[in-house]
């Protein structure tokens, strides 16, 4: 049987990561993979160079809706790195609260979508229902469900009112029992063990070579977390664990994300309960000549910003590197040799986004459409269903 070319894509929502995958398959097995990006390139780096330093915060917030905290966070850190300056402790705590709230809702979002791709729509609905509570907390704290506009170089834009904190804590606490139930349902399910273990393995050495980041690398045994490696914000103020597993397969990536959600809940609660008093903004007058680097741990890995200033009120160069830029190429290592029905979940496991997987299409070598995205998700679900029946029969 001849080889078949499968285009997957093209849409993907991060700044530079919308990609168009071309899978070459031989029968059921993927033998080669190629990518084409550019469907989401909006020239944000160039736009930001035309903005004054304060306004760039809003531009980088629009890079990605789910990472709408980590980009401004990394950007403000890079501006603060140009010249030595200290952010007040209260501002650091507020930044940490917003960043961890984002991590919780992002991981829940991923969990839901992964469930959706595997045919566990109950997990999808549960996870997204829990996510709404976190979005409510964010709305109470910042005034918007996404794109919080809380950051500015030198501090934060809004204060957290003391009377809001009990309600936020109550909402966060309310999701914990359901989340524990969901964790048990996902991690103790024999079907999911059979379906996900050993699928899409990224080895330790590959994670190093690709410079993989975040949960993608931590699932492969690389203990790499900016929050621990170069502490920022309020992360060194409390005890929390970095979750590292060693198998590198899709299951481990799910484990890392689910357990991290609990850590994030603890960090957010600690920060809300122990919010120190003080100023929230050290107003910056001028940015001197120089260059600064800021990096923070986004839900998907390290977000990196580089800002170069020439003493005017606009940056000369603003480089943005989103974590998926480094994580996506690992798809090359993980998907080859796997079956088509696993391709969706391996793609989803690095948490790029759902969009690309929804627009999958399979073509044969004459270019005729054989499968579309729905069919690939259906293939993935049928495989789960088959496994479920086999296990039930046992």
């Amino acid at each position, binding site marked *: 049987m001849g080889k078949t070319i499968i285009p997957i894509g*093209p849409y993907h929502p991060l700044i530079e990561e919308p990609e168009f995958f071309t899978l070459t398959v031989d029968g059921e097995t993927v033998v080669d993979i190629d990518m084409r990006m550019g469907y989401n390139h*909006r020239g944000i780096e160039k736009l930001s160079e035309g903005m004054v330093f304060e306004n760039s915060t809003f531009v980088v917030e629009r890079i990605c809706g789910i990472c709408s905290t980590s980009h401004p966070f990394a950007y403000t850190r890079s501006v603060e790195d140009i010249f030595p300056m200290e952010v007040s402790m209260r501002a650091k705590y507020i930044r940490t609260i917003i960043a961890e709230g984002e991590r919780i809702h992002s991981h829940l979002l991923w969990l839901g979508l992964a469930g959706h791709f595997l045919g566990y729509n109950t997990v999808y609905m549960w996870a997204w229902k829990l996510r709404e509570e976190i979005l409510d907390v964010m709305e109470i704290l910042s005034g918007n469900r996404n794109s919080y506009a809380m950051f500015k170089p030198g501090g934060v834009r809004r204060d957290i009112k003391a009377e809001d904190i009990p309600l936020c804590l109550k909402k966060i606490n309310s999701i914990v029992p359901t989340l524990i139930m969901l964790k048990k349902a996902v991690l103790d399910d024999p079907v999911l063990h059979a379906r996900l273990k050993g699928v899409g393995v990224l080895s330790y050495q590959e994670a190093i070579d690709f410079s993989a980041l975040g949960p993608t690398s931590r699932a492969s045994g690389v203990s790499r977390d900016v929050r621990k490696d170069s502490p920022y914000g309020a992360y060194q103020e409390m005890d929390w664990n970095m979750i590292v597993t060693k198998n590198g397969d899709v299951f481990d990536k799910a484990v890392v994300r689910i357990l991290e959600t609990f850590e994030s809940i603890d960090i957010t609660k600690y920060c809300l309960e122990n919010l120190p008093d003080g100023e929230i903004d050290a107003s910056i007058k001028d940015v001197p000549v120089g260059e600064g680097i800021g990096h923070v741990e986004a839900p998907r890995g390290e977000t990196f910003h580089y800002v170069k200033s020439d003493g005017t009120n606009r940056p000369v160069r603003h480089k943005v590197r989103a974590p998926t830029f480094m994580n996506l190429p690992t798809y090359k290592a993980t998907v080859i040799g796997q079956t088509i029905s696993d391709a969706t979940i391996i793609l989803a496991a690095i948490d790029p986004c759902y969009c690309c997987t929804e627009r999958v299409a399979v073509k044969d070598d004459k270019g005729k459409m054989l499968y579309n995205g729905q069919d690939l998700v259906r293939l993935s679900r049928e495989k789960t269903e088959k496994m479920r029946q086999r296990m039930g029969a046992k």
Partner: protein
Amino acid sequence: MSLKLKALLKSPWVFHLSTGSCNNCDIEILDCLTPRFDIERFGMLLVGSIKHADVLLVTGSCNRMSVERLKVLYDQVPKPCLVVAIGTCTGSRGLFIDSYNCPVPLDKIIPVDVYIPGCPPKPEAMIAGIVKLIQKVGGTQ
């Protein structure tokens, strides 16, 4: 109003098309499906194929590469088809108006029926927008 359009409005099936968005609007569209908002109650269903769609939900700032794809997809939609521009980017390109990769706004490429502004619009706003769309073309729901 044509019979086709009238039938369409009873249970509009929506297809979601991102043209270089930041993902926020896309996630909020998916939020409409989840338990808190649950638009499937009203017969609205997010479909996976453009050929089943009655309403196109377009998000994003129409960058050069996805515009080509957008034109192809718009040709494939069974007509009549209604287009909803979700988010500020689609309506006016927002802050991307000066970007080198976003040359033309959406309404210069395909006809748009309803604009839902916001960055991102809340799910409530999206549902309200769709209801207005249905009222505008004369259906009752």
